[in-house]
């Protein structure tokens, strides 16, 4: 049953009232027995007073007035106005019963408040000897309704019976040391009959005494903020544990930075312990406490830390997450065994002498740090109890706001265009004014010249006008005709128009200023709105890591999950939707992609497999890649399955790329038997569907024996994009501004290249693309390029490549809202969306990587050789020292390459026959066949002549060096070497 917040308050309040009842009963009993002192009365008075005040506050007026009666009586008793008679005790006892009745029935059924109040008043009137005993109904306060009930209560039954008073529950004391041990001793699952389980759900149910205590400690708000907080800390723990896991591959001494990581984890565990104690998750708190012991020991005493310890910690973190997220499903028994392991680690793997002793001896050692005294707990509760200053807003509302912000941007751009019209009008006005002025001046001049030329005529006119000034010559006194006046007023009009024009210009620039400000604010707003919804991938990585860990543990495989780009942000909703598909892909990779360790070793692969999840932002897409170094797709099996299912008329002719697509078909599986963890194919259609729901795409590239890579592309729709608008062939296109590095003009002499045009810009030589060739292959647009003229070029960087793109002209920078290309054209190669301009025009947004350079270098092209583009070099290390071989092999494998090793030249020759390496790292001095001999032998065989060889030796003499190069070595590295330079050299030598 959903509850309103006021309902929650009342629920919590009722629970509070319950806690007052037992002391009240005790107090009354003491009073009866005559053993009550002033303190007892005061205490009872305080509680009754609280009930009175608080009931009025939460709106239970009946209870408030009943309490008032008792409060008055207690006051009189304290003042000595009333004696502690048996009648008074009985009246008070009955009143407390009424409190109880309120507690039991108020919320679910309701109580007949007026009757109860009348009874109470009658009771006390009788004690005071007032008559009549029954109060005048008019004396009853109007606030008290005849029936009072909580919001969710059923309609009043005829006669609610007073429930008997159950034993009042004690506040949970989960922090007490004594209570922490059940986890160790209990052979039952401790959660089962502990109250916190109820706390995990919204407390509800008819006035059940059991639930009151959890309602007091864990309101849904508190629980929600606890879960938020816990999630944060668990993520933090996960991050540090992952760091430990990758750094500690063998038992190592505890270095300061490891200690710092341990301390960070300890801090999170400590906080979680406190929070779960407060919330009433006693078993979690207890388990966290044990874990903290181990972490204390690791941080303060442990000399070394082993991978096993880290594994135990990771398991514990996983378990804790389970305990918090799903108390019902968590394996509580695991807590016990883990606790056992903690102790074993601390005791140096010796069986503890006695379990109970141990826990008793261990815990008092640091009570100030780990145990929670009641005071501390109260302090902590004060910290946590006020709801965190966050606000939960539904996604819909957020969407509305984001959409509105988007609309605003469109509206503003419409305004922009109107502003342009406005300037044009002002300019027109200025021109008109100028014309008018010229006309006026011309008329004036013309008139005067005319007047001078025809003095006689004018005199005649003047004579007609007034004979008064005849004594003046024309040149001595100006005479104004009608025409003069018109010319003058024309001149005045010119000045007026000029003034208006200036005024309008002023208004325009003010508008413009304000508009600019508004644009800035708008983009800020849009930006913030976006950020509200964005969360980094790290919010889901702990779940993903756990998935891989669980699967690898179950299958007994060693799998390292490397996550790259955890900081990449996406809409929270998108992460929610993509988590399942990603988990599925990772599970698949672990189950089917990665071979068992024995097979891997026999294939010369490192026994520990690597699964890589990388997130990258490319243009306005986020690209997620799940890569494994396993067996790759089993193409023959897929082909067979396709044939069997009759999915293709001619399965024999299908290419590997075409076959790979079948794994996304609903119900397609190559396995007769679906394993517990996953069946490749089963569910892949769902994965694809989920991704398509997000308007994303998924592709798979696989190479037999080398691995599989899934590429998921999620478009960043909704996003406002800062973009550059340019024109090609008279049409406008947009590109994301962050992909444009430079805008420049190049003269034709800087362009060269026969098959592939390149252009020199500054120091760089970049491939050159003519946008018009790609945007309008039919050539209908006509290019704006002129032979011999300089070209306008955008230097762009996208998908890790830089290139120059020739365009016709620039339109400007705009903040645009990205829209899809409609329900029909869900995907158009090279187009990442469109935007609608202020005038309603549609402008395509280009995905430059895909449009221009994707055709030749796109790794998504389903060409298997492309897969090798992701470094999967095979490198042969030839050295007689086992440690050198190991160190170099590790270095090589860390790059994601494969390493093979040989002890001497003879073995190396055998190895290269098994698999041709891409590069050989060669020592000089070795038994049986030394490096020089091997090098000569290698270069003598045409099949292997091209394999680059890097000498790795401690011999620094020039003699050794020149000998190596004369034999055909490609590089000469002296030990000790710089790893990065070494890798650079390998890349250079194996590069195209």
């Amino acid at each position, binding site marked *: 049953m959903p509850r309103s917040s006021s309902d929650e308050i009342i629920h919590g309040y009722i629970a509070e009232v319950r806690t007052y009842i037992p002391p009240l009963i005790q107090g009354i009993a003491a009073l009866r027995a005559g053993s009550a002192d002033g303190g007892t009365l005061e205490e009872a008075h305080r509680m009754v007073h609280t009930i009175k005040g608080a009931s009025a506050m939460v709106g239970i007026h009946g209870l408030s007035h009943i309490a008032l009666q008792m409060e008055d009586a207690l006051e009189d008793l304290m003042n000595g106005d009333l004696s502690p008679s048996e009648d008074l005790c009985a009246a008070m006892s009955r009143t407390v019963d009424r409190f109880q009745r309120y507690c039991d029935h108020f919320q679910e059924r309701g109580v007949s408040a007026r009757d109860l109040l009348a009874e109470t008043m009658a009771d006390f009137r009788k004690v005071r000897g007032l008559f009549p005993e029954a109060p005048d109904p008019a004396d009853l306060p109007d606030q008290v309704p005849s029936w009072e009930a909580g919001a969710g209560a059923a309609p009043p039954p005829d006669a609610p019976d007073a429930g008997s008073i159950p034993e009042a529950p004690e506040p949970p004391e989960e922090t007490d040391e004594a209570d922490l041990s059940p986890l160790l001793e209990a052979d039952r699952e401790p959660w089962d009959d502990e109250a916190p389980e109820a706390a995990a759900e919204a407390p509800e149910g008819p006035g059940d005494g059991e639930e009151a205590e959890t309602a007091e400690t864990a309101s849904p708000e508190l629980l929600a903020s606890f879960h938020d907080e816990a999630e944060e800390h668990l993520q933090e723990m996960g991050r540090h544990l992952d760091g430990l896991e990758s750094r500690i591959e063998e038992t190592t001494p505890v270095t300061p930075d490891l200690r710092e990581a341990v301390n960070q984890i300890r801090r999170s565990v400590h906080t979680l312990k406190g929070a779960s104690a407060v919330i009433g998750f006693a078993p979690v708190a207890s388990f966290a406490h044990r874990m903290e012991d181990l972490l204390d020991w690791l941080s303060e005493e442990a000399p070394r830390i082993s991978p096993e310890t880290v594994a135990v910690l990771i398991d514990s973190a996983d378990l804790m997450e389970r305990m918090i997220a799903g108390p019902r499903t968590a394996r509580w028994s695991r807590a016990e065994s883990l606790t056992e392991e903690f102790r074993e680690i601390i005791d140096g793997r010796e069986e503890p002498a006695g379990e109970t002793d141990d826990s008793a001896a261990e815990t008092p050692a640091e009570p100030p740090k780990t145990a929670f005294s009641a005071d501390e707990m109260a302090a902590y509760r004060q910290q946590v109890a006020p709801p965190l200053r966050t606000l939960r807003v539904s996604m819909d509302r957020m969407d509305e706001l984001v959409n509105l912000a988007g609309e605003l941007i469109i509206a503003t751009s419409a305004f922009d265009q109107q502003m342009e019209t406005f300037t044009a009008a002002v300019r027109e006005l200025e021109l008109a004014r100028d014309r008018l002025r010229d006309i006026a001046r011309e008329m004036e001049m013309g008139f005067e010249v005319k007047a001078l030329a025809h003095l006689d005529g004018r005199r005649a006119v003047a004579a007609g006008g007034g004979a008064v000034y005849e004594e003046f010559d024309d040149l001595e006194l100006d005479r104004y005709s009608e025409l003069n006046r018109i010319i003058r007023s024309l001149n005045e009009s010119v000045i007026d128009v000029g003034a208006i024009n200036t005024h309008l210009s002023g208004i325009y620039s003010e508008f413009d200023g304000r508009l600019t400000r508004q644009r800035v604010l708008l983009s800020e707003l849009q930006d913030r709105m976006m950020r509200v919804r964005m969360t980094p991938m790290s919010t889901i990585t702990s779940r993903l890591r756990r998935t891989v860990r669980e699967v690898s543990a179950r299958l007994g495989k060693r799998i390292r999950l490397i996550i790259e780009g955890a900081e990449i942000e996406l809409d929270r909703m998108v992460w929610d939707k993509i988590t399942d598909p990603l988990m599925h892909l990772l599970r698949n990779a672990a189950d089917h992609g990665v071979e068992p360790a024995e097979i891997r070793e026999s294939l010369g692969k490192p026994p520990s497999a690597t699964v890589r999840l990388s997130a990258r932002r490319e243009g306005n897409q986020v690209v997620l890649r799940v890569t494994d170094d396993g067996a790759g797709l089993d193409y023959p099996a897929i082909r067979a399955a396709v044939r069997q299912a009759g999915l293709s008329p001619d399965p024999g002719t299908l290419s590997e790329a075409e076959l790979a697509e079948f794994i996304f078909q609903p119900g397609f599986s190559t396995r007769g038997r679906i394993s517990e963890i996953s069946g490749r194919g089963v569910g892949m259609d769902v994965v694809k569907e989920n991704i*398509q729901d997000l308007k994303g*795409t998924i*592709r798979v590239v696989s190479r037999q024996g080398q691995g599989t890579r899934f590429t998921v592309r999620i478009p960043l729709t909704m996003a406002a994009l800062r973009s550059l608008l340019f024109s090609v062939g008279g*049409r406008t296109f947009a590109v994301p501004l962050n992909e444009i590095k430079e805008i420049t003009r190049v003269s034709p002499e800087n362009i060269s290249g026969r098959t592939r045009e390149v252009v020199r810009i500054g120091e760089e030589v970049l491939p050159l693309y003519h946008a018009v060739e*790609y*945007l*309008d*292959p*039919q050539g*209908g*647009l006509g290019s704006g390029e002129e032979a011999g003229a300089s070209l306008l070029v955008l230097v762009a960087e996208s998908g890790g490549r830089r290139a120059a793109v020739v365009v016709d002209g620039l339109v400007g920078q705009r903040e645009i809202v990205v*829209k*899809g*290309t*409609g*329900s*029909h*054209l*869900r*995907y*158009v*190669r*090279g*187009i990442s969306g*469109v935007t*609608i301009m202020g005038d*309603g*025009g*549609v*402008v*395509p947004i280009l995905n430059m990587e895909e*449009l221009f350079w994707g055709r030749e270098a796109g790794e*998504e092209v389903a060409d298997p050789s492309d897969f090798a583009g992701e470094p999967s070099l095979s490198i042969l290390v030839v050295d007689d020292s086992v440690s050198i071989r190991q160190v170099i092999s590790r270095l090589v494998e860390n790059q994601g390459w494969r390493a093979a090793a040989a002890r001497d030249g003879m073995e190396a020759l055998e190895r290269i026959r098994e698999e041709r390496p891409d590069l050989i790292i060669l020592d000089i001095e070795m038994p049986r066949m030394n490096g020089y001999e091997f090098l000569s032998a290698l270069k003598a065989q045409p099949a292997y002549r091209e394999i680059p060889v890097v000498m790795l030796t401690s011999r620094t003499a020039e003699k050794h060096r020149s000998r190596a190069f004369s034999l055909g070595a490609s590089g000469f590295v002296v030990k000790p070497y710089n790893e990065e330079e070494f890798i650079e050299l390998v890349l250079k030598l194996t590069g195209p």
Partner: protein
Amino acid sequence: MTDAEEIRTGAPDPETPAPSLRDLIARIDQESEALPKPEAEPPSVPPAAEEASHLTPYIRFLLADILLAIPLTSVLEIGATPPVTPLPNLPAWVLGVSNLRGEIVSMVDLRAFFGLEGSADPRRGATARRMTVLVHNPEMKVGLVVDRVMGLYHLDRAGANLQSPPYREGEPAHALLPFITEVIPPPAGPESRLLNLFDVSGLLSSPRMTAFTSE
């Protein structure tokens, strides 16, 4: 008044509310004077009979002199072709996308789709005089650019003389065969064409139309 509005209302006077599709078609009927009046077309139905349940309303349009009819239920709007923005890497029969009141809809040149003569070329303004029929299915909305909209036709499946399409290889209408379910012969008269019932939902779910869902 923008083109986008025009396709919605089709009305010259923006003051009047948008006329119903039926009114609009009635007006188009009147305007298509170069062709036989709808009244002359078989089997003409008095408006009063429209409500009768056994009659299915169809919209008739011309495509390279082929008379086609699609069910009114699959049609959302009819109007002049709005400005079309071409996109790269699409087959020639997809003219591009248009902005219909903020919604992006693709425009398909139905002549080009079937390889008929005289396809529209958005660059030469040839679409200007052609009409767009906005059709939909649950998955997508597409604007079909056709030569001319001819008005409503009420099909009485029981009473109509439905025949299977007689087209042979080489005839222009042969290209449309996969999507012509039945034909209805014209009544006697000099200027009449076969009426082809066109399977628009089949068109929208055809592989060529649905090829743009992913890379």
